[in-house]
């Protein structure tokens, strides 16, 4: 039932009763009080005239004494009723305004609007729990990739931030505790269009609860979680959470990748960054001795990544016992002598990984004074310190929010992307160099959009129809449907065959497409719509393959056929298209 309407009616009961009472007293009096008509005969007002008089008198409009001039008795009663009616109206309007400003009523109205907007979502959407630094970054990136999002956050301020942020599409925001199953249901957990849940709150416990709630209430939905400790991570994985993102471990892994092969790292960065932002520059972390300040969760993850690549590390830690660190230099690393002791002068890299941004900056600046050539890696804990880290010109900055948002984005974009990234690591540097140069050729200065296309009856009807009669190659598909001798600015990264899940990494242009194929594409954002059109529009596909603009309607087709006798198909010689 309509909660808002009921709340409104219940609160309006008294004011409405007051109004009815005031009107009936005023009307009843006017009808009973004797008057004189224009002939001087005794006359009593009819109910109709009384109602008319009261109606225009109550809101203080006042048309005068109708239909005849009032007697003194009638005037007396009229003055009483004016006070009565005006007060009744003021009271009623005051109640309405009070009700509209009432927090409980406002809450009911906003809840109802939210429910309605979620119920009406037809496009696939994700539920993002937690709209902090990471959440806002992820939501913006998802919107840019044309996905719909519903946000839950426990703080009203953040929901207000969401409402104030200018997004093209409406993002419903629910202020509630996401670990409460009721609020997840309100946000659309059971909705058929819901595609997944992302738990990004800064409380591991809440993330855990969200993950298990989703897995119990709607097991088909993927859940992606952020976890700050190994312990939570294992706990979440134990009941089938689809992806647990530990930002420290992810970063340590990336650093190891960069040490191993800068170009692989670059490829990874390009494909998983927020689309539309500036392309990240390659980094070349040197192999040699590294100094690692802070041996907390971050330090441990970085050390694991470095030692995996056989890099020697010297650890500086203020609390060796608490962090279970053996044989490390005691100190914070912010002072020159601690760094000297750790051997900064012959180290090639320094990692400032404490949980205090000012200390991290101080470590980096001091280290660079002692050893100007050192490669600096900084851990940035708070989003508002971005400017400082940029000014410190660190070679690599680890931003919590960015690492998590990028990892989640890679998973939400397409299931093929993580597979591609995984397979890419097994390839050699020459291959990676070639892919990187091909991507930069189509996207220029911006991070490419990455998306996948499935050759299935409901996503690519026109293409499948055509495939049944003639072969189509990847190059054909990636032609511009407006100017067929040009290519769409996009490349295919991966083709996954339907039969046996065979995967083709960076397939060549003459690969012929097969029904059921899944394609992972990367390129400029505008190519998404063009490929989409070719897959669905048989006319556009025809033009793409043959170079002819065929008439679409059957009357025109018949006309053209009559005017141009002879077999038309001979003209569609494929030789002239290449």
């Amino acid at each position: 039932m309509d909660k808002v309407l009921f709340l409104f009616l219940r609160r309006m009961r008294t004011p409405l009763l007051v109004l009815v009472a005031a009107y009936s007293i005023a009307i009843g009096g006017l009808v009973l009080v004797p008057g004189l008509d224009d002939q001087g005969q005794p006359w009593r007002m009819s109910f109709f005239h009384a109602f008319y008089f009261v109606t225009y008198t109550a809101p203080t409009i006042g048309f005068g004494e109708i239909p005849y001039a009032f007697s003194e008795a009638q005037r007396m009663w009229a003055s009483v009723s004016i006070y009565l009616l005006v007060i009744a109206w003021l009271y009623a309007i005051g109640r309405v305004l009070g009700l509209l400003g009432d927090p409980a009523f406002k809450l009911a109205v906003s809840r109802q609007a939210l429910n309605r907007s979620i119920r009406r979502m037809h496009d696939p959407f994700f539920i993002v729990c937690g709209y902090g630094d990471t959440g806002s970054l992820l939501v913006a990136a998802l919107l840019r990739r044309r996905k719909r999002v519903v946000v839950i956050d426990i703080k009203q301020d953040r929901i207000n931030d969401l409402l104030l942020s200018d997004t093209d599409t409406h993002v419903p925001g629910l202020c509630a505790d996401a670990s409460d199953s009721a609020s997840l249901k309100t946000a659309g957990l059971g909705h058929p269009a819901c595609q997944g849940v992302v738990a990004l709150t800064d409380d591991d416990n809440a993330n855990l609860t969200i993950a298990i709630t989703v897995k119990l209430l709607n097991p088909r939905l993927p859940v992606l979680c952020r976890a700050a400790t190994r312990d939570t991570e294992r706990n979440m994985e134990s009941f089938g959470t689809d992806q647990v993102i530990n930002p420290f471990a992810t970063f340590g892994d990336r650093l190891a990748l960069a040490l191993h092969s800068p170009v692989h790292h670059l490829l990874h960065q390009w494909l998983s960054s927020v689309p539309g932002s500036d392309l990240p520059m390659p980094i070349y972390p040197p192999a040699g001795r590294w100094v690692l300040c802070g041996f907390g969760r971050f330090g441990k993850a970085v050390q694991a990544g470095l030692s995996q690549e056989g890099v020697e590390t010297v650890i500086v830690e203020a609390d060796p016992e608490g962090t279970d660190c053996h044989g490390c230099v005691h100190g914070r690393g912010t002072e020159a002598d601690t760094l000297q002791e750790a051997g900064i002068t012959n180290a090639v890299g320094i990692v400032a990984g404490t949980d205090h941004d000012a200390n991290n900056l101080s470590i980096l600046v001091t280290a660079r004074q002692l050893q100007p050539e050192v490669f600096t890696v900084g851990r940035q804990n708070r989003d508002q310190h971005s400017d400082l880290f940029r000014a410190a010109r660190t070679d690599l900055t680890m931003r919590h929010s960015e690492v998590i948002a990028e990892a989640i984005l890679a998973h939400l974009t397409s299931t093929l992307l993580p597979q591609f990234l995984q397979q890419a690591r097994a390839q050699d540097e020459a291959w990676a160099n070639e892919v990187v140069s091909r991507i930069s050729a189509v996207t220029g200065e911006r991070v490419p959009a990455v998306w996948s296309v499935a050759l299935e009856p409901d996503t690519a009807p026109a293409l499948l129809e055509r495939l049944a009669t003639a072969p189509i190659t990847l190059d054909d598909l990636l032609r511009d449907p407006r100017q067929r001798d040009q290519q769409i600015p996009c490349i295919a990264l991966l083709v996954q065959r339907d039969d046996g899940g065979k995967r083709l990494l960076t397939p060549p242009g003459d690969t012929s497409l097969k029904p059921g194929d899944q394609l992972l594409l990367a390129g400029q954002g505008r190519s998404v719509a063009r490929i989409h059109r070719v897959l669905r529009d048989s006319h556009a596909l025809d033009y793409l393959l043959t170079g002819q603009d065929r008439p679409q309607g059957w009357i025109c087709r018949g006309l053209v056929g009559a005017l141009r006798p002879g077999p038309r198909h001979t003209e569609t010689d494929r030789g002239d298209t290449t």
Partner: protein
Amino acid sequence: MNLEKIVFGFFIILALTLNFGFFIGEIDNPHHHNVYELFAAIVVNLVATILKFGDRTHTGALLLATSLVAVLQLLIAASVWAWAVHVSASGLDTMAMASIVSLAGGAMLANVISVVLVIVDTATLRR
């Protein structure tokens, strides 16, 4: 004893009795039907309707519906009366009177249902 129930029952039954009082008499004889009684019936019916606002039970919803029907019928009857007296050339003739009274009769039926519903609701209440 509950004061709210007394007030509620009072208005529901008063709505029916006033309605009945106006309805009774020869259907087309203006002398048998008092305009003041119609006015009182409308006011009391309005009050009874407003009292039912915001009740989310099933009976409450049904009571609100019957009252809205009664109010609607009575308001139409009053409008017909006003039209006949002030606008129509033929004045308050037997035909106009008959339609006013039959409209009020319809409203009375709705009021009877209201009263029956209240009685049933009270009877099923085991307290």
